């Protein structure tokens, strides 16, 4: 036995408060293990969200000692050197209850950024050959592995200050589609990410790329969108 952890968990809705629990510390224990222990052994009414437990589904993100993290792949030993953990819901999203946030605004902004593939072919056409080493595909590869966990959205100062800002994940998705040779969304998507609250609202603080659990760099993707939309605006292809 390694002793006990002092764990503060957010309880209630927006007007809730932190409550403290003692949880036995184990080797190779994750933050999600700690939350699960509280629910299974101390208070079964604790609400939180998880699915895969192996860093694929992106559903277990929470605020851990002040920073948004994917809890299933965050080891307690890494973030709780003092033996104390404070775990809350993700910031910048409405709290439903305890550690569960309403992700609807996050995904609505994906729609606003036109983060949906616009096909150029039908099932009767030949499958298009995309060279993995083409410049456009390399840009897609660098940004495609988003798991929609919301960590970047919760970490973003601009999201906190500007309720209309689409956020790093939605804009990164738009960037990958704009670089997809098979996609036909081009100008309409650039128009969508150029309105108020679009890519130009980003201050390049880079919290998103610092905290992204997939080690993506949304700031770079947003900078790419800024360059591309500026060129499109100056050519008269999109309007302000």
């Amino acid at each position, binding site marked *: 036995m390694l002793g006990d952890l002092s764990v503060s968990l957010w309880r209630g809705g927006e007007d809730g408060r932190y409550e403290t629990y003692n949880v036995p510390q184990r080797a190779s224990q994750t933050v999600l293990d700690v939350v699960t222990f509280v629910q299974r052994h101390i208070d079964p009414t604790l609400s939180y969200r998880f699915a895969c437990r192996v860093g694929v589904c992106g559903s277990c993100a929470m605020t851990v000692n002040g920073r948004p993290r994917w809890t299933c792949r965050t080891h307690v030993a890494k973030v709780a050197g003092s033996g104390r953990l404070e775990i809350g819901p993700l910031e910048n999203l409405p709290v439903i209850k305890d550690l569960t946030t309403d992700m609807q605004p996050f995904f609505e902004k994906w729609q606003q950024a036109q983060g949906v593939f616009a096909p150029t072919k039908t099932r009767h056409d030949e499958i298009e050959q995309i060279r993995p080493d083409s410049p456009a595909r390399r840009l897609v590869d660098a940004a495609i592995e988003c798991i929609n966990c919301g960590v970047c959205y919760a970490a973003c100062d601009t999201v906190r200050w500007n309720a209309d800002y689409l956020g790093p994940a939605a804009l990164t998705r738009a960037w990958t589609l704009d670089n997809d040779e098979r996609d036909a969304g081009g100008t309409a998507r650039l128009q969508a990410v150029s309105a108020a609250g679009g890519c*130009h609202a980003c201050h390049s603080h880079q919290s998103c790329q610092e905290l992204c659990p997939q080690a993506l760099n949304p700031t770079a993707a947003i900078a790419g969108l800024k360059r591309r939309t500026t060129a499109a605006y100056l050519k008269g292809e999109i309007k302000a």
Partner: protein
Amino acid sequence: MNVRLYVWQRATAALIAPLVLVHIAVIFYATRSGMTAADILSRTHNSIVWASYYGLFVAAASIHASIGVRNVLTEWVSLHDRRAGLFAIVFGLLLAALGVRAVYAVVLS
């Protein structure tokens, strides 16, 4: 901020950067060479070059700063876009008026 404001703010920033460097160099030159206010005014008076230089500086700075203030107001004071835009226009016009007055004072008065 939309793409139009973004382009204006970046373009004016690109313009201001070299203007500031020349402005600072002129300040160093004027103060290190022991010029009096009368010496400086005698050189700037009726000079189309200095009028154009600082006129451009004032215009670029007014546009650049007012867009920045608009951003601060929408993000930190939570003003709506329209109200923040109106305030920014008033602020930009005030800056422009003060700048034009200063340029007028050293070139034409």
